[in-house]
């Protein structure tokens, strides 16, 4: 009997111990998830060292698998092939002064932001004919275009630095739709994915989704404190990526804003980020980062 009693007591202890271990594991699991930090693996670096100082932005040609780097200080655009090799550079016969962003209009045509006078340029690549437009808001104030993109119907969208809004323009470059941030906020970046516009709000670091007609669909509050959010991306699974310039980090969230992981490390070496400014996903769903403080674009897998 004594031996059996001991065995029962031993079993109780074991059960209690097992419970403690289970509780400990359960309590540690969310911690380890919260602290999850994946590595970015640098796949491509371009342009060549010393070629561009502080690249202004990057544009992708998903169909032809090309990268376009905007060299604001050099007054030119550089086209790069899918392997990171230079193809061509484009200066519009020396007429570009301080270009900061570009997007494709119709085939062979592009829109370009000219910071020298905050104008919008429409460029025919073949003829190199440039048309300049100075845009104004409905209140008559001059717009200061910053990020630009086009949707599947070639409609032009831009962020306005003065108002903090995103505007969709009609064929006459009049404001057709305004995407307004909350009071006191401003949209710093946006991406058009199918029939949705995703916008990153700078002050609170929230992400908003809109229909193309400007109706707000969602406001997503991210489960992570951000310092200086500057760019966002949305992948095919609707994971949200937010680039933080001051912390030189990329945060990945679920479509509902639940924190998943932190990517990136601050520094100067290859694979490290210094004053990163823009985030894009290429045709292989790799993260392309304008690594402005290191004078390069880096394409990462993770």
């Amino acid at each position, binding site marked *: 009997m004594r031996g059996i009693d001991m065995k029962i007591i031993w079993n109780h202890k074991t059960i209690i111990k097992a419970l403690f271990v289970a509780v400990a594991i359960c309590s540690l699991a969310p911690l380890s998830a919260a602290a999850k930090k994946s590595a970015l693996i640098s796949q491509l670096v371009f342009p060549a060292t010393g070629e561009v100082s*502080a690249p202004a932005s990057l544009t992708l040609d998903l169909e032809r698998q090309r990268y376009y780097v905007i060299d604001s200080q050099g007054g030119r655009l550089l086209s790069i092939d899918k392997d990171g090799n230079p193809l061509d550079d484009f200066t519009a016969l020396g007429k570009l002064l*301080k270009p900061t962003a570009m997007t494709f209009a119709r085939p062979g045509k592009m829109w370009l932001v000219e*910071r020298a006078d905050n104008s919008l340029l429409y460029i025919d690549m073949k003829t190199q004919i440039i048309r300049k437009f100075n845009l104004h808001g409905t209140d008559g104030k001059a717009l200061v275009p910053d990020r630009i993109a086009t949707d599947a119907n070639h409609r032009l969208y831009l962020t306005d*630095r*003065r108002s903090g809004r995103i505007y969709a323009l009609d064929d006459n470059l009049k404001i057709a739709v305004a995407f307004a941030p909350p009071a006191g906020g401003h949209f710093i970046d946006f991406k058009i994915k199918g029939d949705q516009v995703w916008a990153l709000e700078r002050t609170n670091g929230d992400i908003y989704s809109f229909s193309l007609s400007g109706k707000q669909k969602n406001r997503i509050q991210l489960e992570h404190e951000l310092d*200086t959010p500057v760019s966002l991306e949305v992948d095919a699974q609707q994971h949200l990526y937010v680039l933080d310039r*001051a912390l030189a980090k990329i945060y990945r969230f679920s479509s509902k804003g639940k924190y998943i992981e932190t990517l990136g490390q601050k520094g100067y*070496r290859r694979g490290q980020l210094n004053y990163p400014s823009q985030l894009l996903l290429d045709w292989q769903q790799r993260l392309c980062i304008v690594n402005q403080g*290191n004078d390069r674009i880096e394409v990462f897998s993770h």
Partner: protein
Amino acid sequence: MSNIGNPSQLLRTLILAAGLIAIALTATATELCYDCHDRTLFEKKIIHTPVAKQRCDQCHNPHLARHEGLLHQQNEKLCASCHQTLLEKIGQQEFPHQPAEQGQCLLCHDPHASQQPKLLRDKMDQLCLNCHKELEPVKSVRHTPFLRGQCSTCHTAHSSEQPMLLRKNSAALCLGCHPNNNSLRQKHLNRNLNKIDCLECHNPHQSENSALLRATQHQPFKRGECQSCHGQKLSGDLCMSCHTTIMESFNQQFNHIVPSTNGSFCFECHTPHASQQVGLVRGYPGEVCRNCHAGKFERRKNSAHLHPNADRCLDCHQLHGATQPAMLKGGGDKACADCHEKHNNFSHPTGDKAHDPRNGQAMTCVSCHDPCNGTLYKYNLRGTSDKGLCIQCHAGY
């Protein structure tokens, strides 16, 4: 005899006797202290409670201790044994006084006795001026509390939820003494005085101008031509109508064109009336920068070595626009060379003479130093100066 024999009675007697002996010994011990330590130093108008109660042992160990002065603990840890609530409050409020935050209680307070209230080491104005030397009273027009050395009329000593350790926001503070009446309102274009930041235009200490107006004044304001601006629609174009070429300085790859809550983005950083800073920059140095770059100011708190006057952002950074990230003046080196001219000549080669192998850029001071965020290493170096920093580029070092 039978009473003494009672065990509980015996125990009570023993405890009472022990207590009396302890009190007697303590008193004797304090008297012993005065055999060597000048008694007059402890007999001033205001005496710290432990001293008054002759409890030297509350702070000091008479035989040996780990800390200088035979103290039980160092600095604020010792003070916290009695003043815990005060120290907790300092840690919780947004704007702590630097010595209080660093636990340097003895910088302002005498731990034994003082002729001044709150055991202050000196008269309040003299004490404050020991550090705030820029407030030496030299100008002709002086604010009455400042003239009387009553710093605590407007400021708290330890911490505050308001910048500059103010007791309230500036309007509430000023209207406490200056009644919100017709006369005052008329001088301010009948604006709602409760919503005005008085400190934007008035220096609360001293000035060479009447009404304590700040030194740097917008020309129309100085000339009393209020309607030249107030008669027009408020927008950035209003500023550009006089400052016609200023927009060119913004039209750079990196710039401070920001959405405005005040009608013109200029007003995010500049005041249209009067300022203590050149260029009519709002508030105290770094104040407007903190509005958008609060994270940087927070991170600095964790740095062991930070550049002196790091809050004077405009000493190194462009305010409008620049061609490089961080908007440093002259691209980097010039910002440093303005003050460190000699160092710039004999130090590690920079510019075209040396390229950083990590990213191919020309070396600048900030390749190795991080004066803005501060670091854990001397001279704001980004790594240890003996080896850790250098081997990043010089592998065989």
